[in-house]
């Protein structure tokens, strides 16, 4: 995973709330078995609406509850493949937020009025190290889990980190694992 640090440049705006992952990447594109190439299908149906305009900048600013619905990671893949490196919104759906962080795309929650202020400017800088968004001569702080921030700043692989807890895992399986269904002998 690439490191995330400062993301700076012009912003794209999609001023809609409750944007679900079915809109971000419709189902007919989920049949691919690869992880790449989803960008051209981003917002496939909405992109046909008259007046639709979404430049592939590095920062997307959008409405609350972004990424709700289906857990498809194809949605973050499509956004990233299109060119976005960070998403700013008043809130994100849980699974979507988590999915973004797994691929090194930074979701940035800001208060609703700050998101609206950001939508009105042309450029911004998102600084993960300092946990702030800079625009129009101001600095607005955002929150992120410290472990997650560390992982993103260093581009660390989740599985690699977990396998460092290999001993704890083996101990758990030896001493505490629950009896449960054995799927291989059904």
């Amino acid at each position, binding site marked *: 995973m690439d490191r995330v640090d400062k993301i700076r440049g012009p912003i794209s705006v999609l001023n809609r709330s409750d944007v679900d992952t079915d809109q971000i990447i419709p189902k007919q594109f989920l049949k691919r*078995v690869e992880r790449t190439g989803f960008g051209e299908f981003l917002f496939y149906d909405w992109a046909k609406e008259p007046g639709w305009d979404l430049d592939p900048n590095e920062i997307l600013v959008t409405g609350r509850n972004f990424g*709700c619905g289906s857990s498809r990671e194809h949605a973050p893949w499509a956004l990233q493949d299109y060119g976005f490196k960070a998403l700013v919104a008043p809130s994100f759906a*849980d*699974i979507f937020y988590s999915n973004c962080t797994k691929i090194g795309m930074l979701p940035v929650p800001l208060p609703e009025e700050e998101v609206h202020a950001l939508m009105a400017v042309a450029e911004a800088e998102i600084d993960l190290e300092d946990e702030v968004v800079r625009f129009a001569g101001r600095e607005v702080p955002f929150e992120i889990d410290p472990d997650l921030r560390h992982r993103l700043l260093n581009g660390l692989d989740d*599985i690699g980190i977990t396998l460092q807890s290999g001993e704890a895992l083996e101990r758990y399986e030896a001493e505490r694992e629950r*009896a*449960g269904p*054995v799927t291989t002998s059904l």
Partner: protein
Amino acid sequence: MAAEPTTLFDKIWAAHEVAPGLLYIDLHLVHEVTSPQAFDALRIAGRKVRRPDRTLATADHNVPTDGSSRAAQILDQLSRVQVETLERNCAEFGVPIYSLGSERQGIVHVIGPELGVTQPGMTIVCGDSHTATHGAMGALSFGIGTSEVEHVLATQTLRQTRPRSMRISYSGALGFGVTAKDLILGTLGQIGVEGGAGYAIEFAGEAIERLTMEGRLTVCNMTIEGGGRAGMIAPDETTFEWLRGRPAAPDPLPLESWRALRTDEGARFDREVHVDANALSPQVTWGTTPGMVAPVTDAVPEPRTPGEERALDYMALEAGVPIEEIALDRVFIGSCTNSRIGDLRAAAAMVEGRRVAPSVQAMVVPGSANVKLQAEREGLDEVFRRAGFDWRSAGCSMCLGMNPDILAPGERCASTSNRNFEGRQGRGGRSHLVSPEMAAAAAIEGRFVDIRDWEPAREPEPAGAR
């Protein structure tokens, strides 16, 4: 000193924490759409599936419902490749699979409880947002993305920030004609589609305790539509009765430890919500999120936000139109929300001796091969067919329209599924979410009706029909 009172969620979480924020996963359910990239990544990294014996796969999302019994028969090439890829991956990594043609194939959230691999106290994940379904049996279950699928395959654990806790308590009982689906739709109308975000939700109270196991599965299934990561219900006699004798259920059932899976008196939740079950009516969604919902006796509301305006425009509905005047083109009975045998029995009881309106095309898609077989043993397939329904084979089908079962642009559908998003059931399609009983009655009338006072005449049974 007495131990601090804890919630059902706390107990399951504590029992599975391998290290802070690292949860052991007791069961990983896998399907064809969100797994191929995860298996690929394992291959590239030279990793194995750590616990194939805690992993189970099925093909459900894009399988045709035309009775095809082998992947090779799938006409859509991309779908065929995806199902074949799942079969190949499972063979290579030693993961058991019930693919197309297996008598145990079906929607992943239907077959888990049906086989009894879903059990109280477990942690369960699947690369599908409706995984919260399994919480109805007192499990802690999350939907995850493909990177997390890979993580669980490789490590049998999941990194999770601990969610906050919420309890939704239902007082009273559901009235005649008001179902578990109406209970959860009404709740979504009350808390909104973001009301549960960041929470693990426990559903509790008299109305929940009275629900059948299948009704509870319907409720927990739609937790995600309120933004909640997990939904759960404390296991009780209804749960144990359901599990007894299922293929994967222990014999005897470990009742003592399962009965301990309850929220203690005095345990604290970060948020408590109360819903009066007595006050709920049959619900119909009118917009493009599951929270845009109203009682069937209401009219389409005035839009209050740009999102609601957009939704009415997409749905081609005018504020003030009574919901009972909304005419339908299609009816879909199926999905992980409402495709279990109890759902089909309830719908069949509505349509028996009646005919689907000429303007309506209606279909029933059982949730699993087992449900289909059981329904056929009971003659439900004949009831549906005689009424004019199309009787299909198991899969996710028109809930998400990855297979050939889709709405045409502009078509309006009464659907027992879980999402009425724009284009969800087919580009330009308009979906109204309802209970199986409401969908069945709507198929007969060609429009929504309040099933509480709906009793049209039935035709006499044809001689020798059953």
